[in-house]
């Protein structure tokens, strides 16, 4: 008898087992939805797949009756713009302060405790303050994302910089490298893939803060739409939107991973190839 820990599914078996939970969830949904719809054909809690298809066509491929815009496209563009700005800004600040903190003791001493303190503040708790300072427009949504994820990126990059082998830095110094040269030529190239990794790990939180910001005050965006139609329980719109957000998030994560593999093959090589 082979031990269970040594039994491996075949290639197709692995694929089938991977799909299995999704198939079960789908089946449970279909059964539950049919049962509710049989009882009340106008039930909105668990809509049929036909209603989903109708909602997708309505939101995605027909101009809105009220504004003439394609709502899904419009919402997606607004949300992505906010997200990209928030994440891009956080990555940039994270890199600059993170590497600085890691490399320059006179920068680390005043900044490191501050960053740690800020990273521990729950951003949702200081929302009213953000509104008063940054207003209710696009700026406050981007700022919420930045406050939410930037300290985490800074701390991660700082730790990664600290982790660089001291031999490397000493070697570069014996070769006559200045502080600036060492940071730009030795540290930065090694930190870049780690920055992409940090961004990938914080993307989930970035989406969370984006949706939260859009739920609070907005005129468009994926989070705005979900919280708006929640008012009349339009699950036929909400569930496809959730699926769409998941797809977008997955696509972003996947592309960042590909970019990282393409630009820094050495990094992924050392991680045994299966690093995701």
């Amino acid at each position: 008898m082979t031990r269970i820990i040594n039994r491996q599914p075949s290639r197709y078996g692995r694929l089938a087992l991977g799909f299995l939970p999704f198939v079960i969830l789908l089946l449970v949904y279909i059964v539950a939805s049919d049962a509710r719809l049989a009882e009340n054909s106008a039930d909105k809690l668990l809509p049929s797949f036909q209603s989903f298809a109708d909602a997708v066509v309505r939101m995605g491929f027909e101009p809105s009756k009220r504004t003439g815009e394609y709502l899904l496209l419009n919402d997606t563009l607004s949300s992505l713009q906010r997200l990209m700005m928030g994440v891009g800004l956080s990555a940039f600040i994270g890199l600059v302060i993170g590497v600085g903190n890691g490399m320059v003791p006179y920068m680390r001493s005043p900044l490191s405790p501050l960053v740690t303190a800020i990273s521990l503040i729950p951003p949702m708790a200081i929302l009213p303050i953000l509104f008063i300072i940054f207003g209710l427009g696009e700026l406050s949504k981007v700022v919420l994302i930045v406050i939410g994820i930037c300290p985490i990126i800074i701390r991660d990059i700082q730790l990664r910089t600290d982790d660089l082998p001291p031999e490397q830095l000493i070697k570069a110094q014996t070769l006559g490298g200045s502080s600036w040269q060492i940071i730009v030529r030795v540290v930065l190239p090694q930190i870049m893939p780690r920055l992409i990794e940090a961004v990938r790990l914080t993307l989930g939180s970035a989406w969370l803060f984006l949706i939260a910001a859009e739920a609070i005050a907005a005129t468009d965006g994926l989070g705005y739409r979900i919280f708006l139609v929640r008012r009349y329980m339009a699950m036929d719109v909400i569930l496809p939107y959730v699926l769409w957000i998941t797809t977008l998030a997955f696509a972003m994560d996947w592309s960042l991973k590909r970019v990282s593999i393409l630009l820094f093959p050495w990094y992924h090589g050392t991680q045994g190839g299966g690093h995701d």
Partner: protein
Amino acid sequence: MMHSIRSIMRTLTLTVSMIALLITTSPAAFAAEKTDFKLAWTIYVGWMPWDYAAASGIVDKWADKYGINIDIVQVNDYVESINQYTAGQFDATVMTNMDALTIPAASGVDSTALIVGDFSNGNDGVVLKGDKTLKDIAGQQVNLVELSVSHYLLARGLESVGMSEKDVKVVNTSDADLVAAFSSDTVTAVTTWNPLLSEITAQPNTSEVFDSSMIPGEIIDLLVVNTETLEANPKLGKALTGAWYEIMATMSGTDAAATEAKTFMAEASGTDLAGYDAQLASTKMFYTAAEAVAFTHSADLMATMQKVSEFSFDHGLLGEGAPDATFIGIETPSGVYGNTSNVKLRFNPAYMEMAAEGAL
């Protein structure tokens, strides 16, 4: 090997059907006679009596009289409480006439307005920064909870000065953050309800340019009960109505008992007696069942529901399947508005009449 796969598949199929069964056996599935009921309420001046009803034991007294149990549950999120009611988790919930139409009724859950508690008579308002009149709102951004009664109030206000929603830009803003948002320079106009409204008008340099007292009787606060549950369990209707009007009688008095009851409600809603009295002043409470019955019987109610239906239809709230505003039938004592074969919202004064006649 094949055998074990087959047995796994069988177990799985069984699990799936068990889970599905669990999910679908919601309480609403059993409309038969039962003895345990749940009522959800949220904080609002006209609904605070339910908290007092639970705390003072008045609900229990009436429930015992009819041999049933009524559980009074406070829900923090208003829309969520209505969604839960619509999904069948509560038998009764407090809501406005518009939300009763657009959430449960539009979701096909036949609902009855058992008690018409009050209407907003200044509790909802449009506020602009600066010394302004309603006409100045043209071209401004207006922060409000979109698709709520605030949105309806704004639409009615704009109509009254010959404008429409196209003349302003509506920004959906969560009610929890509206007061903080108003302190920001980018926000110049809001539409909201009490107690937020009084917080906002208390700030310097604001003008309240339109309020619900200019459209009296159009924003109505109801206790809504699932029609099937009510028909199968008239005891529930009797107990709730009896308890409600006992509290109304206490509250409307001027004696120590009235002060005690109102102080309790004030504290539970985060204000003091003076603040609560101020909110009551802009609320037309129906302290006696007779007043509520008369209001329900008047033809104005049907006219109001027509306006609300048309607004809801224009904003897509009746669902995509709705071809026009009359898609959902609304039954009032003076007649049915809309589709008589799809009546999903009923104003039924029967229980309030029993209360008025002292027959409970």
